[in-house]
């Protein structure tokens, strides 16, 4: 099934002509409505008229996450604030969140693209969709929700947490499609077994998994355990949310980027130069139809490659392969984006803490765990256990409050954090094995 036959199967030349038309309009719009972009263009001695063909895009300026932060909260809007009907935001310490605005039409476009993604996964209006993505400022929950409604399916807005109840609902309601992070699907599986619910009691047919990196081995594991087809979905809040790209069930081999709305490029993350199609590098996306907050050449920091080989499903939109890494140090923990620098600033804001810390990320029972190890120095040390335990609690509390992720804080001895060539090894990610 193809949700939007006309757009999803456009011949490449027509698709590219549509992209060029939309891109030219986008440049005019951001140049005249977003002071940040006007400034950028001026610095480069460029204007919207310098783009004559898609290949001219490479001269145009990038947009980085920091640019969004610098223009916090609404400085990147290309429409008056009252035209914005919804705002989402990524986690961040105070003042550093990344804000995204949507007009009514943006919300509808997003729902349409998410519905398109559901259809690519083989879902139809007869399906019951169990949505465990978090509802709130995070785009996952509401993104999948509106898409499922646009498709006409039955959506269960379960959100995160209360896993045991989730499994019961899945069984009692006969859910056929599961939306969550890949690691949460394994946690649901473990919980089902522990609650005496057999997978044969469930009607799950397909899982739409995203918001964190996973491997082919993990996919096989999920498919075997949950007895469903596991598909990869791509999205990021800065661009829209889930539904920027989706793996089709027909090929189950890479994610179609919805190119009538998003223009993908692959660049060398160090030089910023575009790489030939098929080479691995950093994914850069230009939004072609966003009204409230269009972004030009947004650096996603996700590492992938574009596969131009026509897909057996009949869609002409290029596929990217699964995200294999990041060109920065961002961590994804239970679907939440966490930068080590955010944890560092939380530690520094807590009185007397040393800047020596280490993050240990692991996976237990399918769920990511984060341990923050902090070195104990004389100025924070007390011979009373409860004083140190209060400090541990305080740090975990701040991390939960500001970053939305549960962390265990552990006090360690000074120099307890391994230093290589004088530089502390800040991150130990044990999930990659």
């Amino acid at each position, binding site marked *: 099934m193809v949700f939007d036959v006309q757009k999803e199967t456009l011949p490449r030349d027509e698709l590219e002509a549509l992209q060029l038309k939309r891109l030219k309009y986008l440049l005019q719009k951001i140049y005249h409505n977003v002071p940040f972009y006007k400034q950028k263009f001026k610095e480069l001695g460029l204007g919207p008229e310098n783009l004559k063909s898609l290949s001219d895009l490479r001269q145009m300026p990038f947009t980085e996450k920091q640019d969004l932060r610098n223009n916090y909260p609404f400085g990147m809007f290309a429409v008056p604030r009252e035209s914005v009907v919804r705002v989402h935001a990524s986690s961040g310490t105070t003042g550093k969140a990344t804000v995204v605005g949507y007009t009514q039409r943006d919300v509808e476009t997003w729902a349409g693209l998410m519905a398109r993604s559901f259809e690519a996964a083989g879902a139809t209006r007869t399906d019951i969709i169990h949505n465990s993505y978090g509802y709130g400022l995070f785009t996952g929950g509401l993104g999948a929700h509106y898409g499922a409604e646009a498709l006409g399916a039955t959506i269960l807005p379960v959100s995160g947490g209360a896993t045991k109840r989730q499994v019961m609902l899945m069984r009692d309601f006969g859910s056929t499609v599961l939306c969550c992070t890949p690691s949460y699907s394994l946690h649901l599986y473990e919980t089902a077994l522990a609650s005496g619910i057999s997978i044969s009691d469930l009607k799950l047919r397909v899982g739409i998994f995203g918001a964190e990196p996973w491997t082919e081995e993990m996919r096989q594991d999920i498919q075997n355990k949950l007895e469903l087809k596991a598909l990869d979905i791509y999205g990021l809040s800065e661009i829209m949310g889930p539904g920027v790209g989706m793996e089709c069930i027909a090929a189950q081999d890479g994610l179609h980027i919805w190119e009538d709305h998003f223009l993908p490029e692959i660049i060398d993350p160090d030089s910023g130069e575009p790489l030939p199609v098929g080479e691995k590098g950093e994914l850069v996306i230009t939004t072609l139809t966003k009204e409230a907050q269009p972004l030009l050449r947004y650096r996603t920091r996700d590492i992938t490659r574009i596969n131009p080989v026509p897909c057996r499903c009949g869609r002409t939109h290029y596929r990217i392969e699964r995200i294999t890494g990041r060109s920065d140090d961002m961590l994804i923990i239970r679907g939440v984006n966490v930068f080590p620098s955010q944890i560092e600033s939380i530690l520094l804001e807590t009185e007397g803490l040393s800047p020596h810390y280490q993050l240990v990320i692991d996976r237990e029972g399918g769920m990511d765990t984060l341990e923050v190890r902090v070195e104990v120095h004389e100025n924070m040390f007390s011979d009373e*256990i409860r004083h140190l335990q209060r400090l541990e609690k305080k740090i975990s509390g701040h991390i939960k409050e500001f970053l939305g992720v549960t962390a265990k804080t552990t006090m360690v001895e000074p120099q307890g954090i391994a230093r290589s060539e004088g530089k502390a090894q800040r991150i130990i990610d044990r999930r990659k094995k």
Partner: protein
Amino acid sequence: MIVEQISIFLENRAGRLADVTRTLAEAGINIRALSLADTTDFGILRLIVTDHEKAKQALKENGFTVGRTNVVAAEVEDRPGGLHAILTMLSENGINVEYMYAFVQQSGQNAVLIFRFDRTEEAVETLQKNGVRIIPGDELYNI
């Protein structure tokens, strides 16, 4: 009247306690009393030693986090009810014990109680008023 106690932060790892005792042995420091408080992740070793300045120096040089706390050493008769009598007089005067530990002297009939109070001066006053002997630091270090 005050006794200097040093405290050391220890991760719950095999051999860490031995690292402390080795450091002290090599510095020629004798341990008078000790107590170890622990959680699942870490422990705090509290020590009264013959020379706390030297001990602190040696431990810091070996990378330990060392703190210093004022505690009170009280002498109590080594018989049933000895500790109870002292705790009763403290509680009657509304004085909190943060933590305590004890050891029995080799020579005499008495035990030594090491107290950490929330209000040290008041505690000392109460104990003395009730005829409890407070052992001065210098005496304790050299027992």
